[in-house]
């Protein structure tokens, strides 16, 4: 599958609030812990060999489960394969907790859910749709599931003007 590698590498070089040297272990049997610079940028986790400019790899942090393994270690499991986990060893309990928190909150889906929650609540409290002023009220992205179904239903209705001759 092609992807915009240069652009993604450029993204990995952006400043990030969450970047640290952690011990990282891959999910396969036989993988060992290696010291990596791990960096969280948007909803990607990049990992670099220490002092290298280009990351070795990028993990998309969506549909994954982040868990505390012990006081200083957390894991990320992808693809509903609960046993195949990436492990990350931190220097302290506090650091570990911060990473787990940051990774969960970095997920696009997590942010979307919060947005929908705020939108619904603001509308309930004020009677106004807060997305109206930005002109994005009808973007599918910001709808809850029920509204998406209604949108698709409406869009699939025949356009009356085209049938009148």
């Amino acid at each position, binding site marked *: 599958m*092609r992807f*915009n590698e240069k*652009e993604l590498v450029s*993204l990995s070089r952006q400043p990030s609030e969450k970047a640290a040297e952690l011990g990282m272990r891959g999910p396969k049997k036989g993988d060992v812990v290696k010291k990596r610079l791990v960096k969280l940028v*948007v909803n990607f986790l990049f990992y670099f060999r220490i002092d290298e400019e280009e990351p070795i790899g990028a993990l998309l942090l969506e549909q994954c489960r982040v868990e505390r393994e012990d006081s200083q270690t957390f894991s990320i499991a992808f693809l509903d394969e609960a046993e195949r986990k990436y492990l990350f060893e931190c220097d302290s309990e506090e650091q570990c907790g911060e990473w787990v928190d*940051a990774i969960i909150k970095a997920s696009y889906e997590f942010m979307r859910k919060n947005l929908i*929650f705020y939108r619904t609540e603001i509308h309930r409290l004020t009677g106004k749709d807060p997305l109206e002023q930005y*002109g994005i009220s*009808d973007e599918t992205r910001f709808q*809850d599931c029920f509204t998406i179904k209604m949108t698709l239903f409406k869009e699939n209705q025949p356009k009356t003007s085209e049938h009148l001759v």
Partner: protein
Amino acid sequence: MKLHEKILTHYLSCTSPVDKEGYLYKKKARNATYQRRWFVLKANLLFYQERPGDRHLLGVIVLEGCAVRRPESDGQFGFSLVFEGPGLKTYRFAAGDRHTQESWVKALLSASHCYLSLLVRDLGRQYEEAKQQQGSGESCHSSSVSALKSPTSFFLPVQGPTAEVREGRSLSASTVLQAPTKVVARKSPKLWHRRNAHVTPLNGPAPLYGEWPLVGFDPLEEFSKLHDYYGQEVKKARDEWLRSRQAQEERSDGDLINLG
């Protein structure tokens, strides 16, 4: 650099909603021909394949750090994704008609993680303010509503003539939030001190202030600048598009969320 593709394809096929999909023509880099591809936009990822339902994905474009631009000559319903930085690509697309073009441009403008992050922050603030107003027993009418329209310290000067959208202007996908050109921020003196009281909501998500892995800027400062600079363009484009839609269809332009 290795992009763990299985994670992306798994995300694409999971139950969370697709933000937009459809046919577009994508320009090949080498020989400037266009190829029709089926595009699927989900979160900040634009996937493409030959046909819908194809097992084999041709590729994905990660939509961070790019601007959405319309071409100089508007013959082709085209638009491009311009990645900003030395040596970075520009992806060129053409849609089948004006409606499709505008609809994709709109969707891509609000696709980035950075954009969503700003939006969530802003709504989080509005939510806190709305709750505090409720808490103090004030009714949500008149003065409180006008303060909520412009939640923080945005001053939105009405600028310039309303002309058509200038071609070739960059509409940054990562940070555009639309400005209402007619509303001028009014700071109610009653609300001033409350704006600074950050109260943890008891029954909502945890406050998100200051905890985002942001991509290197101060959102509050950028926010008001970008409102002024880009917001007008987006509103004009949208109004144009809405007008042309309303000419074709009879349905009302109401909000799709009916929370009444």
